[in-house]
């Protein structure tokens, strides 16, 4: 018994000895030597560096050493550091030189993404390193600006005028060498994101040609989808004139309302919202008579509020009347909506349907034989005020029935139109017209558009495209707050092909 007791005492003492030995103070007396300390500095690293694809990234960091050594090694590596990139993104080493000279290409640097580039300088003698990091964003040269759809040979191409007034030609063929465009018809853009779940929510760009319609990536301007993919069922006859999105204003920003595609004169709709599933354009919808032989003009009028009585209005060239567009049918206007003229029986040919200078009010320039008419209507009505027709005026506007281009001001009561090489301004309030500019006699105006506020400056602008038989030109006119063009243009851009249509890319 006693022996057992002692055995346990010994075991416990041994354990205690081990525990106390663990607390033994280290009396180490080592020999410290100074080593070479490296630091890497670069003023350029202080802020994010924006660089375009195709440009060369040049970084020249300064290396300082406490005990200068000639035996240094360098490594430049980078990884994707975008907010939504994963932690497991690969790291690529792109150089082993003191300074970086590296061409930014799409295989390593994706457009719009953020990257962190790190330089690591190592003293090979000690193995000690220092690093400096740079934040890089691959900027989009084509992020914003006017996009011009041009006829080029038997196909089409795109040019852009960028916000700094520099011009880039042949953009589409440069970025999409394998997917040439057919004969161009129109180009449409949205200035708001569309959540159709076909791809990441983003602004949409559609190009319509005589035999196809494509969606372009708003980030890379590369072709994403053709008409067979944009529609649930590819239309039997492919002849698109318009694909775009009606919007309403929420707060100060436009929001997606309804997608409208006009193909072979027929209306197709697309409904997006917070619900799941891929949204594409559906089948053609019938007119109020339940038939499909109508022919819609490539214009849409919309309402600015979500509760707008008539969110989308279109014009039928065949039956010469307006329709309100629902998801699954075109509907007629109620009888009470029409007083000054009959929305359901206009009986004239449409030349232009565009926003007027009052919110929710639209200008429809018509011709009845050789007589031009301005019809004005609104898209918001109320139960106790159901009338949408506002005005019907025989226009005192010489030559407008044969105008080659028209644009309605959304700020002042004016409609600009072009006959041959002459530019005219029609005033809706006084029913008068003035010739405001004459282009060289060899040029004819092919297209024009009015922009209420140029991005960044808020300037009102009229953009006019001309064609002289061999070269297209674009003129910018600044428009004053009362609608004056100031006698001449502010900018002219040369070297275009024949411009068929243009739109601003936001």
């Amino acid at each position: 018994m006693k022996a057992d007791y002692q055995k346990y005492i010994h075991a416990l003492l041994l354990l205690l000895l081990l525990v106390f030995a663990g607390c033994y103070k280290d009396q180490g007396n080592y020999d410290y030597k100074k080593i070479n300390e490296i630091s890497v500095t670069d003023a350029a690293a202080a802020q994010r560096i924006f660089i375009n694809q195709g440009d060369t990234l040049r970084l020249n960091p300064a290396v300082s050493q406490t005990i200068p050594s000639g035996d240094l090694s360098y490594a430049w590596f980078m990884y994707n550091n975008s907010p939504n990139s994963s932690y497991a993104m690969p790291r690529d080493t792109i150089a082993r030189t003191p300074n970086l000279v590296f061409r930014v290409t799409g295989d390593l640097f994706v457009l719009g993404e953020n990257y962190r580039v790190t330089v690591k300088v190592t003293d090979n003698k000690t193995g000690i390193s220092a690093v400096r990091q740079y934040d890089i964003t691959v900027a989009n040269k084509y992020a914003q600006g006017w996009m011009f759809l041009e006829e080029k040979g038997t196909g089409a191409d795109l040019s852009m005028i960028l916000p700094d007034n520099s011009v880039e030609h042949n953009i589409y063929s440069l970025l999409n060498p394998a997917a040439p465009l057919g004969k161009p018809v129109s180009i449409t853009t949205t200035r708001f994101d569309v959540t159709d779940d076909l791809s990441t929510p983003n602004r949409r760009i559609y190009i319509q040609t005589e035999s196809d319609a494509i969606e372009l990536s708003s980030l890379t301007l590369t072709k994403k989808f053709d008409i067979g993919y944009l529609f649930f069922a590819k239309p039997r006859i492919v002849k698109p004139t318009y694909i775009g999105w009606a919007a309403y204003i929420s707060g100060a920003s436009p929001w997606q309302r309804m997608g409208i595609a006009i193909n072979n004169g027929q209306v197709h709709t697309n409904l997006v919202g917070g619900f799941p599933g891929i949204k594409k354009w559906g089948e053609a919808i019938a007119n109020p008579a339940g038939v499909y032989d109508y022919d819609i003009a490539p214009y849409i009028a919309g309402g600015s509020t979500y509760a707008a009585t008539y969110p989308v209005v279109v014009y039928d060239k065949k039956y010469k009347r307006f329709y309100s567009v629902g998801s699954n049918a075109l509907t007629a206007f109620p009888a009470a909506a029409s007083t000054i003229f009959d929305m359901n029986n206009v009986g004239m040919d449409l030349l232009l349907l565009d926003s007027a200078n009052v919110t929710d009010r639209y200008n429809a320039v018509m011709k009845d034989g050789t007589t031009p008419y301005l019809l004005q209507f609104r898209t918001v009505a109320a139960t106790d005020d159901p009338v949408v027709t506002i005005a019907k005026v025989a226009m005192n506007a010489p030559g407008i029935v044969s105008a080659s281009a028209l644009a309605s001001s959304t700020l002042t009561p004016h409609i600009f139109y072009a006959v041959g090489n002459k530019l005219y301004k029609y005033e809706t309030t006084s029913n008068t017209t003035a010739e405001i500019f004459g282009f060289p006699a060899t040029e004819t105006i092919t297209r024009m558009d009015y922009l209420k506020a140029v991005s960044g400056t808020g300037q009102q602008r009229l953009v006019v495209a001309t064609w002289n038989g061999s070269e297209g030109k674009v003129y910018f006119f600044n428009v004053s707050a009362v609608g004056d063009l100031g006698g001449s243009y502010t900018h002219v851009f040369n070297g275009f092909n024949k411009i068929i249509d243009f739109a601003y890319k936001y």
Partner: protein
Amino acid sequence: MKMAYLKRIICTICAGLLVTACKEDQSLIYEQDARIYFTQGLTTEYSFTAEPASVVTDTLFIPMRIMGAAVDRDRTFNIIVDDSSTAKLGYHFQFGPLVIPADSYQLSLPVYIYRRPGLKDSVVNAYLTIGETADFKPGYIDKAFSGNPYNKQHYRISLNDQLLKPSTWDTRWATYFGSYSRTKHQFINQTYGSGAWPSVNFPQDINFVVQTMKLALYNYEQANGPLIDENGERVVFL
């Protein structure tokens, strides 16, 4: 007494050492028996009414997955047709080979279904359960509550050749298609290409079904005149 006390101290210290002892972490690899299950236990309802009379057979596919690693030989599994089934194996339906090919983790099992005269006036069901073979045991059950008997070990195939008013007609489709008639139902099935449209439930997908039907009816009427249903009424969509 003292003895027991010391013993306890020493045991506690030793236990403490044992508990904190380090051991290399083993990677989590499924090392149990090979098993198989339906990727999604559910009901497939098939109606031959969407097909012209000339179609007397069709094929359904049931997705299946295995548990455990793939092996380099074909392995067989078993599906038991429950006694309560009204569909007869070999008469109403027949399985493709019950074999998981070598080096595969999954399979779309073909089930051949036959249009038999009895389907005109009755709905037959096949209740399927995973059975056991030397190669595979039944796989896991994802939902063990009675509300969904068709968990990953169970599957139901329902066959018919008669038009049954879809349960979603009144709640979802009456707004677009109006009152129900068998002729109208048949027309929609044939245009859509199957009887699966009643379960379409996202707004733009519903719009596409509605737009497609309206255009199809318009084209039908252009070619043949109005479509009259079994009650003598003209088929119209709202």
